[in-house]
């Protein structure tokens, strides 16, 4: 249980936009032009242990999807390292780590039949002899709750929920033990979302999968995960076991986020939102990224970024208030 399956060590990912011709020319003429650098992920360290479901939450632009892509080897970290069972992943996809994407429409090739979408990878990797692929595909489709007689159909012939299931079957086809789910249920209706979440939990039990579950939906994350990591503008601000985080959030951002989540049991409430918007990752504020919106901000917060500190056993938080 406690063996780290996937580990992020000081992972940083920057996206740079090089200067174009005109900007380079302007630079030569002495104009103050500089390239754009987006700090998508800024020195993130945490580990996902075997059998665990870790929920990664944050709002748009916080770097959670970039981190998911780093985990799968779809991006190479600018600094630091991603390790799967101690082996570096850094930009080289590992078969055992598979990704399930958000959009069940654009992540399936519309010109391929379901049997090819699901069956291509195991055939290419030589996991299943070519003759057995049809049976293998049928078995996978049954596992995710689809009728194998649909295997000759194209993606557009399925509903959103069924397409999500096809995406899951495709990921499972190469026998992964780690799934990165990037907003995997965000595009689905509530009743369909419940079905897919149940499927994720069934698969976890029957196949012993470990999940990194990326979502902006705190309800989904609280339901599914053992541990939650909260990100804000590229940095981890808090990490804690799910029940503890939701019962007593420590970081002011987590507190604000939890206060804003609409809940069924809070009726006719007075909304009292936190101020301001998420700053652009092109120009993050100095010091603690959250200080311009934080109700507890002190002068120190604008100068010095707070490190992640253990505030209780198993709980980490990055805030000067804890010091």
């Amino acid at each position, binding site marked *: 249980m406690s063996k780290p399956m996937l580990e992020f060590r000081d992972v940083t990912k920057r996206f740079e936009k090089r200067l174009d011709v005109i900007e380079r020319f302007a630079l030569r003429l002495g104009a103050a032009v500089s390239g754009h650098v987006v700090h998508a992920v800024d020195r993130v360290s945490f580990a996902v242990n075997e059998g665990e479901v870790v929920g990664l939450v944050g709002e748009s632009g916080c770097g959670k999807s970039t981190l998911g892509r780093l985990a799968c080897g779809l991006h190479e970290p600018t600094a630091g390292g991603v390790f799967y069972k101690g082996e570096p992943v850094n930009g080289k996809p590992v078969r055992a780590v598979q990704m399930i994407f958000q959009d069940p429409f654009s992540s399936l090739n519309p010109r391929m039949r379901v049997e090819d979408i699901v069956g291509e990878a195991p055939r290419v990797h030589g996991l299943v002899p070519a003759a057995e692929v049809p049976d293998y595909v049928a078995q996978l489709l049954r596992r995710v709750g689809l009728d194998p007689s649909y295997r000759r159909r194209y993606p557009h012939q399925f*509903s959103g929920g069924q397409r999500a299931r096809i995406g899951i079957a495709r990921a499972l086809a190469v026998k992964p033990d780690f799934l990165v789910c990037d907003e995997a249920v965000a595009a689905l*209706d*509530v009743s369909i979302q*419940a079905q897919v979440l149940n499927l994720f939990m069934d698969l976890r039990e029957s196949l012993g999968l470990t999940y990194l579950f990326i979502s902006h939906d705190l309800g989904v994350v*609280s339901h599914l995960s053992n541990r939650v990591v909260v990100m804000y503008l590229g940095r981890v601000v808090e990490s804690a076991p799910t029940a503890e985080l939701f019962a007593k959030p420590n970081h002011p951002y987590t507190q604000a986020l939890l206060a804003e989540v*609409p809940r*069924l049991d809070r009726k006719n409430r007075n*909304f009292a*939102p936190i101020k301001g918007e*998420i700053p652009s990752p092109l120009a993050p504020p100095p010091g603690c990224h959250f200080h311009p919106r934080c109700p507890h901000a002190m002068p120190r917060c604008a100068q010095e970024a707070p490190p992640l500190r253990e505030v209780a056993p198993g709980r980490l938080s990055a805030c000067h208030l804890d010091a």
Partner: protein
Amino acid sequence: MTALLEVRDLVTEFDGREGRLRAVDGVSFSLERGEILGLVGESGSGKSVTGFSIMGLVDAPGRIAGGSVKFDGMELVGMPDGDLRRLRGKRIAMIFQDPMMTLNPVLSIETQMLETVLAHDAVPREEARRRAIEALGLVGIASPAERLAQYPHQFSGGMRQRVAIAIALLHRPDLIIADEPTTALDVTVQGQILYEMQRLVRESGAALVWITHDLAVVAGLADRVAVMYAGRIVEQGSTTEVLDAPLHPYARGLLDSVPAANATGGRLRQIPGMTPSLAHLPAGCAFRDRCGHADDACGTVPPITLKASRQVRCHHPL
């Protein structure tokens, strides 16, 4: 006192390759001034088309095939287009899901807002400008005079939605129809917009129809909730009543599907099957194929039964 908005047996149909589809099938509700109604449903339930029908924005191949929409005593169905245009934007305003689609990307916010003011009121440009600045300030946009000169792409998603709301509020409408206005926004920004809307409705006494798929948003905002399924309102009542003790099996199923309402780690109680296509609805109650309580009686369309202030369309209410 008559209600501000009275929708009776509204039917909206679309002619398509699969024949005539009823997107809205006998929808009735009414709304008082200052009231917030949450119109909830999943994709394809007809909630947005209901909103468009009220606004008279259903284009061919769709048409309003029956029923009536009375706004402040005036019948909107069949009203000449010119009269309708004088109401739209003036007394009835609509806010859409995606502000990037409703704002014109090549016109400045100022041009777009002034256009809206001048479309209905013959006022000097300076006065129109003053009103635009006031409206932007009202929805919480900092330094509205400077922001007015900017273009939509210079605003963030949340700010753009605020601009769209400010445009809707320019004429202090009596009725606002909001179609999933916070769905595309982040949680903290959604909280801010909900806060502004709640405050503005309370201050101005406007009525608000909030169309959404998110039951949790409605819980915090609306006075009353109407749940739609396959073109019909299956249950309607006060927010507390409907969310705490739903009478319709679909409403119950929808509430049980929301993860936060369940214990962590347990299985969610799911509704079996999926939302049927409008072209292949079962006869009678559209939900009966997915319903645990269905029997032979469900082969006929259940009538609306009244239970105190609540309406439910089910042969076997819970």
